[in-house]
Structure formats: structure tokens, C-alpha cells
């Protein structure tokens, strides 16, 4: 197991370096100048020169990359061009809020999706399965912005039941203190990811149900609910963990939408705005953060997998 984890960590490091090179290259390949984007319509040649010099943009790309890597290693991502704040501060402000929103919605999605997937697997081919299948596909197929707006139109505008915005507090505590406002964004994000989780769970549970050990459990006289809980759920969960681990980038993309629909400025919007205004420090730092999150996510998923699956846990040391 140690060997396996060592190898996985090695791979993760390679990927993080890859992410740095890739984003750096892409960002600098894109046409347009950061100076003009930042200085706006009044960018004179003189000011552009000052800006470039101040931010080291007049140096060769390789040197810029070296500086970026060196500073990133020290945890210094520079200062945003357009927001004039240290990027680390910006991320520190926004990341936890996003984590709350995404964490809650993923949790909710899993809480619904796992039993739902197992239920569908058990009732495979029957009316209940078909209904849930179609339902989850419809949820999956709704563009998330449309879905969010529909919910707002119904629950906030029509019924005045729930606030149309996510909590506006800056701190995580403040966000959690406003559960009513969390409902719509969390539900929107959760329902959108519900579909893919439940599909995975369903097909993985179908696979497990077909295995002999389930038959053995039944032959022992175990009641069906115990068969499912003890012998199906955990086995079926394993592949889903891997999927979860890879979900980080997709979730970030989803977050942009939720953030703009529910007015919840987080990493997604920070990133989006940085990308449109060529705010290199934010762009680089946030892709790096997401990249690292993804890599960590799949690494953690692998570790979780290892812990949950004794076949790997006890594999030769």
C-alpha cells in the first residue's frame, strides 16, 4: 500500500507541475495584453510600459515562469492586477465560502443519490427505476443556470418562500448562520450532480447485486434490507468514490453558474473575472488551486478507496 501511495503521490506532483506549465503557457499564448485589460480605455503607451515593468511582464516568458514557480512554492501568488489585493488573501476569502456551498451540495447529492441508486438497482427495469431514470436525466439535462433561475422564479418570486440570494456574509460561520438563504443554491447544485452520482451508484450496485456473495448473504437468511446495507452499499460505493475525487473541476465550473445566479461571489466568479480581464496572478493561482484540489481529490479518493477496500489495504505491506 505504501508503494502504491508513493507512486500516486509522485504522479500527483507531476500533474501539478503539468497544470502550472499548461496554464502558464495558455494564458500567455492568448492574445491581448494584461496591461490594456487592467488599465482600461485610458491605457497610454507610457502607462502600459510602467505596468509591464512593475509586474515583470516585459521579461522573457521563461523567467516569468521561473518566478511564478518560485513564488508559488513559497505560497506567494502576487497581487491581483485589477483587485489590488494579494491573491492569497482573495483566495482565502473566497475558497472557504465555496467549500461550504459545494460541500453541502455534494453531501446532499450523495445523501439522495446513494440510496436512490441502490433502490434503482434493486428495482431494475421496473416502473420505479424507469421513473427515477427519466427524472435524473431531466435534472441532468437542464442547463444549471436555467434550473437555478426556475427555482428562484418559483420559490422566491412567486411564493416568496426563500431568499433569491445566497447568504451574503463573508465568513463561513455567517454563511452557515443563514440556512434559509442556502437552500436554493445548495439544492440547485445538488440536483444537478444528483443525476450523475445516482447513475454511477445504480450501475455499480447492479454490478454488486449480480455477484455471488449477495446470493450467499440471501442464502444465509439475511433480510433484504440488511443484504443491501451490509453487502451491497459499501461494495457499490467504491467506484463512486473515484468519481467524486475527480469532480473538482466540474464542480468549479458549476460554481460559476451558481455564483452568478445566486449572487455569491466565490472562486468561480473570481476566476471568471480574472480570465476575462487577464489578471494573471489570480488566473495562475486559482487554476493551480483547482488543479491541486483535483489532484488532491483524486489522491484522497484513492486513499479512501484503499481504506475502504481491504483488497488494497492489505496488499503486500
Amino acid at each position, binding site marked *: 500500500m505504501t508503494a502504491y501511495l508513493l507512486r500516486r503521490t509522485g504522479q500527483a506532483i507531476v500533474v501539478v507541475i503539468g497544470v502550472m506549465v499548461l496554464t502558464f503557457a495558455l494564458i500567455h499564448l492568448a492574445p491581448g495584453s494584461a496591461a490594456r485589460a487592467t488599465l482600461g480605455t485610458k491605457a497610454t503607451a507610457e502607462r502600459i510600459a510602467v505596468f509591464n515593468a512593475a509586474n515583470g511582464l516585459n521579461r522573457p516568458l521563461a523567467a516569468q515562469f521561473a518566478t511564478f514557480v518560485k513564488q508559488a512554492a513559497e505560497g506567494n501568488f502576487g497581487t491581483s492586477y485589477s483587485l489590488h489585493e494579494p491573491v492569497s488573501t482573495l483566495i482565502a476569502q473566497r475558497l472557504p465560502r465555496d467549500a461550504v456551498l459545494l460541500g453541502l451540495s455534494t453531501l446532499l447529492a450523495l445523501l439522495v443519490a446513494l440510496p436512490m441508486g441502490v433502490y434503482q438497482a434493486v428495482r431494475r427495469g421496473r416502473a420505479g427505476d424507469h421513473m427515477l431514470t427519466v427524472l435524473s436525466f431531466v435534472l441532468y439535462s437542464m442547463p444549471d443556470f436555467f434550473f437555478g433561475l426556475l427555482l428562484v422564479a418559483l420559490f422566491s418570486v412567486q411564493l416568496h418562500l426563500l431568499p433569491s440570494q445566497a447568504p451574503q456574509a463573508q465568513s463561513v460561520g455567517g454563511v452557515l448562520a443563514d440556512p434559509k438563504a442556502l437552500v436554493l443554491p445548495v439544492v440547485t447544485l445538488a440536483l444537478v450532480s444528483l443525476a450523475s452520482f445516482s447513475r454511477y451508484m445504480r450501475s455499480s450496485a447492479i454490478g454488486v447485486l449480480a455477484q455471488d*456473495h449477495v446470493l450467499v448473504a440471501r*442464502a*444465509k437468511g439475511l*433480510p433484504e434490507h440488511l443484504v443491501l446495507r451490509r453487502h451491497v452499499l459499501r461494495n457499490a460505493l467504491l467506484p463512486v468514490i473515484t468519481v467524486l475525487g475527480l469532480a473538482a473541476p466540474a464542480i468549479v465550473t458549476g460554481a460559476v453558474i451558481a455564483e452568478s445566479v445566486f449572487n455569491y461571489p466565490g472562486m468561480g466568479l473570481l476566476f471568471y473575472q480574472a480570465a476575462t480581464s487577464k489578471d494573471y496572478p489570480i488566473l495562475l493561482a486559482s487554476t493551480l488551486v483547482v488543479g491541486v484540489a483535483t489532484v488532491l481529490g483524486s489522491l484522497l479518493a484513492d486513499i479512501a478507496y484503499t481504506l*475502504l477496500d481491504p483488497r488494497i489495504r492489505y496488499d503486500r505491506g
Partner: protein
Amino acid sequence: MPPLLDVRNLTTHIRTGRGTVRAVQDVSFTLEAGETLGLVGESGCGKSMTGLSLLGLLPPGGTLVEGSSVRLDGRELVGLPDRELRTVRGNDIAMVFQDPMTSLDPTKTIGHQVAEPVLLHRGVSRAAARERAVEVLGLVGLPQPRRRLSDYPHQLSGGQRQRALIAMALANEPRVLIADEPTTALDVTIQAQILALLADLRARLGMAMILITHDMGVTAGNTDRVNVMYAGRIAESTGTDRLFSRMRHPYTQRLLASVPRLTQDPALLLPTIPGLPPDLADPPTGCRFADRCPYATARCRAEEPQLDGTAEHRFACWHPVDGPAPAEIGGKVADAVAGAATGGGEGAAATTGLAEGPAAAGTVVRPRAPEPAAAAAPLLEARGLVREYPLRGSWLPGRDRRVVHAVSDVSFTLARGETFGLVGESGCGKTTLGRLLVGLDRPDAGAVTLEGTDIGTLRGGELRRRRRDLQMVFQDPFSSLDPRMRVSAVLREPLRIQGIGTAREQRARVAELMAEVGLPERGLDLFPHEFSGGQRQRVGLARALALTPKVIVADEPVSALDVSVRAQVLNLMKRLQAAHGLSYVVISHDLAVVRHLADRIGVMYLGRLVEVGTAAEVHRRPAHPYTAGLLAAVPVPDPAQERAKRGAGIGGELPDPAAPPSGCRFRTRCPLAQERCAREEPALRSFGPGHTAACHFPLVAPAADSPSDVAAGRP
């Protein structure tokens, strides 16, 4: 007093997308305490479904049809609410399944799984359930049961897992144990151990047992009575001895005859049952065996025979036979060759009625030199082959470089037209050796020479050309053919790759190959999945023949096939060899198969070749205790013989090939082992012409000639 288990008119239907499968039809039998009932038959004839139906464990869409009745001690189980049925399952009736690899939950400890039924049915405390688990694990002979409790299934070997499964079934001392092919997935040696264990437990606990198997040998030694099933029905039902000596149903007769035996004359073809069991979604009217029965008449096709006869011996047949078929029924190899030459082959013969192949008797004239002269250069020679696989993670600093010793210093030769058989338990390196022989893998040391050329030194085009001479037939006919290619493309592929002939010539050759293996030319347009297992194995043979090789290495060519089909393929292999002067290396863990095909046999143990000799010699006068043990473990379809040898065979399991025992690798399981065996590695010694073995304490006296000559592996 009612019988312990009384099954009447058990009928199970399964609704599926392609119609209703009548998996079990009108099955009735009784079972008394302490009795073992065998359920035998070909694959798909409803054996497992019968067992599952007794417990009410039907697949989705499955129902027990009106009129079915299962009484346990007079209590009707059919129609019982699920809650009450659950108190029977795992408590009064327990079941052991075929595949120990998948029958245990990989994420739960053995202790948990064995204690689970105890907790469930006995209402005892967790600690008490654990104690009971320890007890039964000890009972089934798992060493150090207490330590095993916290192990996970993957940490156990196949045999140990099967023991754990049995322990689980026995935890509540059930009155009836249904064992569904409990040993099919295991090695013969382990199979013997498990069967002995089951017999012992049954005697000690006084259980009744239903033993489901397709192996007539297993049936012979381990059952009191037998139900032969065919296409969802019982075809014949009687006491075991009577079944083997005085069977009445032609199906039983044929089934028995098609099993190759150690004692049988290899020159004779095996009798076969042509065709396949019917599709149970659409069973034929009348006798379901009629299509494959040599005695079938119009009545058979119109009218269904009922299971009738005396209480001791019931059978369902309009034209019962009386006792076993004569041995010559299969015909002889030479005749088969002649038959093929006249264009019909087995396939055509199959439909002609009485027997497969022309019935006329004749002597075999094998077109080969049976006594390879020492002077004649061998066709293929393996010299000191070594192949070791590094273990995962052994690159880490601070760890020893550990390797699996798959093949260690193996040498032997193969003469033209000869068949060399390789036997040994699973994991002893047979496949690895086979791959080395055909150049699919390269040895770490040693060399394989074909007609004097070391194929290890060949590269590129030269190697590609040389490959024509060496072909391989694989074990699994389901994975050895590309499922996306039509058979015509499969057979043309070798010709294309080697650039042999024009398209037209290639097509002609492909048609010729199909005829050669007894498949109709129409089959060329089909995909592999449209064939049965046996037919696919024929395609595999045809493909190997396409390049007219000199040597064919066949790795377990029949182990995935049903008995009846197995006989057909074995016959075909013999015929092809006779017709083309092929040399075979046949790999199998089944000594009977090897004995049937091979001229000489090599016995492998943990990567080493421990004994080599002519088939007859090895069988008659095994020198190595391992060979003797293997021979003893092979189940023979003869009740008397089987019962006599119960408990014989090899104990223990194959040691870890990454850390083989010092000295003689077999010493840990050898009844004759002494301290010398641990110190000193035995050299190959001669035990007669062409018979060598590596043992310090051989079962027969070695010949007096110099060992150095033998060490080179030259017979």
C-alpha cells in the same frame, strides 16, 4: 415418518426478455437425513436452479409454478412468507456456492461473514457468535481459525475460501446442505481435500447433502444416490453404484462414456454426445434428449417420457439402454482421419445415427515415430528456462527485490509428431512455460530452440517468419477469438499478417481450414459469439493450423468445456495431429486429459519439472510422490474405486511461488520428506528409458545410468 426433504413437481420459470425460461420442470425427489444426493448434468440443465428453488432464492423474474412443493420435515416451504422462509435459509437448509472467489463479500472480514448467520438465527451475543465462528472454521480445517477471523477474503487462498464458505454454511448445523459445484473452481488436489471434508462433516453432523456437480468422477465417490438432470428435468434417478453400472438412460450412458479416463486406451477416440442441450426458453416437444439421442424414434419426438420405474431406479426414456456403452463406441483415430479425408468428418458422421464417426473398428496407425531416437535432433528444445516476475513494489528502497519464480530451470525436448503433456497444480508455471516456448515471452535465462535455431535471438522479420512454425491454442475459447471479427477474418488474419497468398488463395485456405476442423463453411460469416464453446475451440484450432505450424502449444484446450464437448475437441486434436504430423505441447491440470493425448508427460511443481516420462510409465510407475499424489486425486467415474481411495492424495496447498521452499520444493507437502530434502535440491535421475524424476526418496528404484546425461533433460 416423512422424509427429511420431500420435493414434488418442482417447476421454476424465469421470465426474461426473450421469453420464459423453463429452468426446472417437474422435479421430484426425496432426501433422507445423512444421505447425499448427487445432481449431475451438463451446463445449463437446471442443477443450480433446482438448488436455489429449494430455498426460494429465484433470480428476478423467477417464479415457482403452481403445484411445486418442497417439504422440510413435513413443513411446506413453497408459499411461505419471506420472513418465515428466511428462518429456514442458512439455518435448516444452507448452501455452498461454486466460486469461492466471488462468493465472499470482499469488504467484510471472514469472522464477520461466518458469524453473521449465527447472529441472525440463534439470537446469541456477538462474542458467542464469534466463538461459534472460530469453532466451525476449525471444523472445516482452516489452520489457526482465531487469527483468520479478522482476515479479509482476498488474504485466503482459493481452497481456504471454499472452507470458509463451507464453515459459513455449517455455522448453524443445517439439516440439509446444498453444495453447488463446491470444487469446480479448485485444483484436483484441493478438490480431493474439500470433498473429503464434506463427507466427513456430513457423517459427523448427520446432515443430508445435495451435491451438485457436472463431474462424473466426483459423483461416483461422494454420493449415495444420483439424479441425472437434462434440460430442466430429471432424466434418471437411482443409487450411485447402480447408475454407474446399470444406467438405463442413453444420456447417462453417453455422459459417462465421454469422460476420458486414466486407464483408457489413448488410441481410441472418445465417444461424444453430438449437439447441445436445448434452449429452455423454447424446449422441444417430446423427449428433450431426442435430438442428440442415437436411439431416438418418432415417438420420442412426439411424446414426453415420464420419470418411471421402480422406486430404486427411475428414468424417463422410451428406449432405455442397459449398462455402459462398449469402449470402442468412439472409433479410432486413424478411421477418423480417413473419415475427414472423405470430406465428412465428425460433423457429417454426427447426424448419421448410431455413433459419431464411422463405427467400424480398426487399429490406430499413428504417423510418427513412437520411439524418438536419441540421435534424431529434436524439433523443439527447451534448455534451462528460467522466468521470474518481479513483485509489485519491490523497487522501493529498503525492500528486498522479490520475484515470483514462475519457471525455474526447465529443460525438455519435443520430437516431431510427438505430444508432450504438462501437468501440475494451478500456479505452478505451466502457462508461463508455454508462453516461453512459443516466444510470446522471453526467458530470463536458458533458451528455446526450434530445429536448432534459438528463437530468443531472432528479431523483426526473421522472427515473424519463424512464428509460423510455433502456434498456440488458448484455454478460453471465449477470450481467444476477437469478438468483433467474423470467423472468416479471424482465420485469414494469420495469412494476411504473414503475407501468404493472394486474397483468393487465402479464402480458399480458410474454407479448407473450416472443413478440416469440422465446421460448415457457412460459419465463416458468423461472429464468434454465435458459436458454442466447443465450436469456438475448433475455430481456435483452425487458426493455429492456418500457418501449417510444426508445433502447437495448447494451454488447457478443453478445461473450459463441458464433458461431452470436451471429448469432441480431444478427438479433433488427435485427428489433426495424425493428419498433419503435428507436435503438441498440451498443458492441462487434468491428468486424464493429458494421459489421453500425450506420449510423454512432464509434471511441474512450483516452476520446476519434477518428473518426465512416457505417459504409460508416469501413470503406471510414478517415481515422484507428487505425481503419485496427483494421480490419486483425479476423480474416476467408478464408485468403488473412488470410495476406496477417499482421503488419499496430497495435503496442504501450493506454497508462495515468491518464496519457494529450500531444497526440494515439494517437501512441505510430501509425506516422505526428510531433513535432507530441505538441504539439498534433488537432481533429475533416470528411472528407465525416457523416464526421469527429481526426488531424493522416489517411489520406485532409479535406473543405474549416470545422472549427468539426464540432467540435460534428454530422454
